[in-house]
C-alpha cells in the first residue's frame, strides 16, 4: 500500500466504523468533487448528474470497508462514479452518451500561452479532465486550489479557511499548482 494514501485509508476506516466526525470530513471533502466529476461526464445534464451522484455515494459508503488505499480516495470515488455513469446510460433508452470528446493534449501549453478560448473552457471534456486531475491531489492541495481559484478567495482568506499562516498558504498553493500541472499532464 502506498503510504501517501495512509490518511485516506484512516479516514475510510473511521467512516466505515460509524464515526460521525469522520463521515462529516469525508462528505465535506468529496461530495462536491464527485458531483462535478459526474456533471461534466454527463454533458452537464443536472438531473442525471444528481441521480448518478447519489447512487455513487451510496455505493461508495457501502464499499468503504473494501477500500485498500490502492489509489487516492477521491480517485477511487471517481472510479465508482464512472461505473455508475455507464450503468445509467445502459439502463436509459436515451442515446445521450458520456463525454467522449478529449481535452487537448496541449492544454498546459495553452494555459501558459494566454487566455484560454471560451469554447475550450465550456467543453465538458476539459472540465472533466480538470476535476479528475484535482481528484488525484492530496486533500489539502485540492482545498487550497478550490478556495483560491474556484471560489476566488484571497490568499489571506484561504489561510484563514485552512487554519494556516499566510506564508504557509502561499507555499501550499505553490506546491498545489505544481502538483495540478503534473496531474493534468498525466491524465
Amino acid at each position, binding site marked *: 500500500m502506498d503510504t501517501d494514501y495512509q490518511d485516506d485509508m484512516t479516514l475510510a476506516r473511521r*467512516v*466505515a*466504523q*460509524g464515526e*460521525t466526525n469522520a*463521515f462529516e470530513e469525508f*462528505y465535506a471533502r468529496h*461530495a*462536491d*468533487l464527485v*458531483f*462535478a466529476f459526474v*456533471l*461534466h461526464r454527463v454533458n452537464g445534464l443536472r438531473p442525471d448528474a*444528481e441521480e448518478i*451522484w*447519489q447512487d455513487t*455515494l*451510496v455505493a461508495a*459508503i*457501502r464499499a468503504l470497508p473494501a477500500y485498500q488505499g490502492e489509489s487516492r480516495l477521491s480517485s477511487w470515488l471517481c472510479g465508482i462514479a464512472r461505473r455508475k455513469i455507464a450503468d445509467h446510460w445502459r439502463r436509459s433508452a436515451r442515446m445521450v452518451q458520456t463525454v467522449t470528446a478529449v481535452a487537448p493534449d496541449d492544454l498546459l501549453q*495553452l*494555459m*501558459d*500561452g*494566454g*487566455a*484560454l478560448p471560451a469554447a475550450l*473552457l*465550456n467543453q465538458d471534456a*476539459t*472540465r*472533466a479532465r*480538470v*476535476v479528475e486531475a*484535482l481528484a488525484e491531489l492530496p486533500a489539502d492541495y485540492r482545498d487550497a*486550489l*478550490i478556495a483560491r*481559484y*474556484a*471560489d*476566488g478567495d484571497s490568499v489571506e482568506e484561504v489561510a484563514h479557511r485552512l487554519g494556516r499562516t499566510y506564508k504557509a498558504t502561499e507555499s501550499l498553493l505553490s506546491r498545489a*499548482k505544481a502538483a*495540478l*500541472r503534473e496531474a493534468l499532464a498525466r491524465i
Partner: protein
Amino acid sequence: MHDQETPFEQNLHRLLRASIGPEARPLPVLREELRQKLSAQIRAQAGPAEFPAAVLAVFSGVALLAGAAWLATRLDFAVAADLPALAPLTVLLGVNYLCLTVACVIIILRRKHV
C-alpha cells in the same frame, strides 16, 4: 484583481470556476438530504458501538457494592433465619437487577451518540 498573475494562474481561475465552481456543485437542499441519508446508512452499517469491557466492569462493581449495602440495611434477618437460602438469593437477584439496569442505560446512551 489578477493583474500580477501569470497566464497559467489566470486560466486556472477560469478553469476551476467552470469545472468545480458554485455552478458545478449540487443544490444545497439536495446536498443536505444526501448527507442525512448517508449518515443514517453509516449508522445502520456500523451497528451499535462496542461497549468497553473495562467501563462495564467498573459499573458492575459499583452496582454490586451499592446493591449489597442497600439490601443489608433492609433484609429481615428474622425471615432469613427461618429460610437460610432466602438472604443470599435476594442479594444475588438484587445485584443482578442493578447491574442489568446500569449496563442497559449505558449501552443505550452510547448507541444514541454513534
